[in-house]
């Protein structure tokens, strides 16, 4: 058997290579789009409907095989590395952008303390987690269970000289702690309200703080109505006035029950309708009378004043005098007045 020549060997190798290349190449009209970060490929070529009709599922599988081969070819091009006996490829960043699950997190708005601290330039200092406990003679945690220098674990508290000797100093400590916690919670909620864009309500003044008269009146009014019967049976305080601006509710007669009162009312109504002469409204009549009297008095006063002197018409120029003349043209008595008016005018000129 003759050994094959070099050319022959090379030709065979070339052939083999071509064959193997043929195994992994797929022909497509339009190139596929790849997104290797998502292991994704997009084939824009329209699938052949006639082929599908003829072969059905086999056609789909052939199509899938071609596309997968192309995607795999791309993936094998990516530089690979060895990690723990396996070959891995580092995938590039995904191109395709998909919607997020939740909106990106917002930065928390600063609390009131943080604002203040920034304004004043106060910086946070880190305290160590453990502290020296003098009484126990050991290092302990600064906070929480079995903390160092625990003020609540004191067995003896000195009563201050100014304090009431019967006051429980231990209870006082506990109470103070509770109040601090409650205050902190309140501040937290107020900070949340502020971050939501709602201004927190004004703080309630502590009991015993001075209040204005109007404020007190308002408080009284509110407390008066804060009973189970909405203040219906609350007696007025001595020298207290009814609050203004509080409307009265209409009260209707009961629909059933008081027959006698109802009969009376109906009869009154009928009597009023039946009467021949008009009904006399006393207040209206009195008012009418009063007005007439006043008018009469005013008229007579005017008449008398004009007769006495023109002094009443102070500062009126010649126009005024003329007007007087014009108006009081007819009538003998008035003619006399006319002359007087003239004298008045002259007097004025003398002045």
């Amino acid at each position, binding site marked *: 058997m003759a050994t094959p020549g070099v050319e022959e060997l090379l030709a065979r190798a070339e052939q*083999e*290579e071509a*064959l*193997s*290349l043929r*195994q*992994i190449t797929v022909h497509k009209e339009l190139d596929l789009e790849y997104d290797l*970060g*998502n*292991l*994704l*490929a*997009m*084939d*824009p*070529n*329209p*699938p052949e*409907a006639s082929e*599908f009709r003829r072969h059905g*599922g086999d056609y*789909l*599988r052939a*199509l*899938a*095989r071609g*596309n*997968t*081969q192309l*995607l*795999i*070819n791309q*993936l*094998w091009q990516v530089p*690979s*590395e060895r*990690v723990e006996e*396996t*070959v*891995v*490829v*580092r*995938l590039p960043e*995904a191109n*395709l*952008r*998909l*919607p*997020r*699950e*939740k*909106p*990106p*997190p*917002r930065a*928390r708005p600063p609390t009131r303390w943080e604002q203040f601290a920034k304004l004043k330039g106060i910086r946070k200092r880190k305290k160590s987690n453990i502290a020296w406990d003098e009484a126990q003679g050991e290092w302990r945690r600064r906070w929480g269970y079995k903390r160092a220098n625990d003020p609540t674990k004191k067995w003896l508290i000195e009563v201050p000289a100014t304090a009431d000797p019967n006051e429980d100093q231990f209870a006082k400590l506990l109470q103070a702690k509770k109040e601090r916690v409650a205050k902190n919670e309140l501040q937290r*909620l107020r*900070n*949340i309200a502020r*971050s939501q864009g709602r201004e927190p309500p004004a703080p309630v003044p502590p009991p015993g703080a001075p209040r204005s008269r109007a404020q007190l009146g308002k408080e009284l009014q509110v407390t008066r109505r804060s009973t189970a019967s909405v203040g219906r049976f609350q007696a007025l305080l001595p020298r207290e006035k009814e609050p203004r601006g509080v409307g009265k509710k209409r009260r209707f007669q009961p629909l059933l029950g008081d027959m006698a009162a109802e009969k009376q009312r109906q009869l009154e109504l009928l009597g009023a309708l039946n009467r021949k002469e008009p009904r006399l409204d006393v207040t209206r009549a009195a008012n009418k009378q009063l007005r007439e009297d006043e008018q009469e008095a005013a008229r007579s006063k005017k008449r008398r004043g004009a007769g006495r002197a023109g002094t009443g018409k102070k500062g009126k120029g010649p126009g005024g005098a003329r007007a007087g003349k014009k108006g009081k043209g007819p009538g003998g008595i008035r003619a006399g007045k006319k002359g007087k008016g003239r004298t008045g005018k002259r007097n004025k000129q003398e002045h």
Partner: protein
Amino acid sequence: MAALERVLKPKTKRSKRFLEKREPKLVENVKNAMLLKGGNANCTVTQALKDIYALKKPYAVLYKKKNITRPFEDQTSLEFFAKKSDCSLFIFGSHNKKRPNNLVLGRMFDYHVLDMIELGVENFVSLNDIKNSKCPEGTKPMLIFAGDAFESSEDYKRLKSLFIDFFRGPAVPCVRLAGLEHVLHFTALNGKIFMRSYKVLLKKSGCRTPRIELEEMGPSLDFTVRRTHLASDDLYKLSLKQPKTLKQKKKKNISQDTFGTTYGRIHMQKQDLGKLQTRKVKGLKKRPAMDGPESSSKKPRHV
């Protein structure tokens, strides 16, 4: 809502951790899917949901009981379930005379329905019907979309995005080459979408890249698109918005050519040529201006 903005404080560390896990994050977790059944779900729909669950597992929740709800009429109960199980993808399966073998595929943004597409299942072959070896649970699939319809039609485009969102699994920096075992192939043809799931067999080809053979694994579904509920453009845009800190800042004045050589552009101030150092010659030496005329006046006398 951020941790400090919560009005009700968690009482234990554990519940605090639980709530923190659900908060919006800069880099998001893998989207979880919930698979629900309607009031009347037939065998096909139930089995389809089970198979999709098998593909999607550990990132899915399969609801076992019936939930009488209609996603296209009232989305509140879906949103409630999404909040409860912290899932932003869902498939709702139902069956009735008007819409037989119905699957509603959708996704949520901020616990509200963003996109929803109703698909009718025309043909269904289950994972169990095909007696073949399956790929292991939690394999990241390769996704392939074939057909021009996925690029031309607006509904199909969104459906493609929805399928990718649903099946892509966790975003990973690197992948084991031998572990690429699963392909999901979507073909848009004759107004239908054929979803096929294949197991990949890597064969020797004689060169470095292997030759691929496919083996049908199931489930395979033929879909027709029925009703759609797509997000408005501005809402969709809002959901795509990336946080500022995640965006990479563009480095200025650095470029690369085709050979991978990096070039930098440097900006310099204008050079002051007056101070340029040239060759030192005695004759060019600067002398004080006062000396010049005096010496020249003296020189002739000397000669």
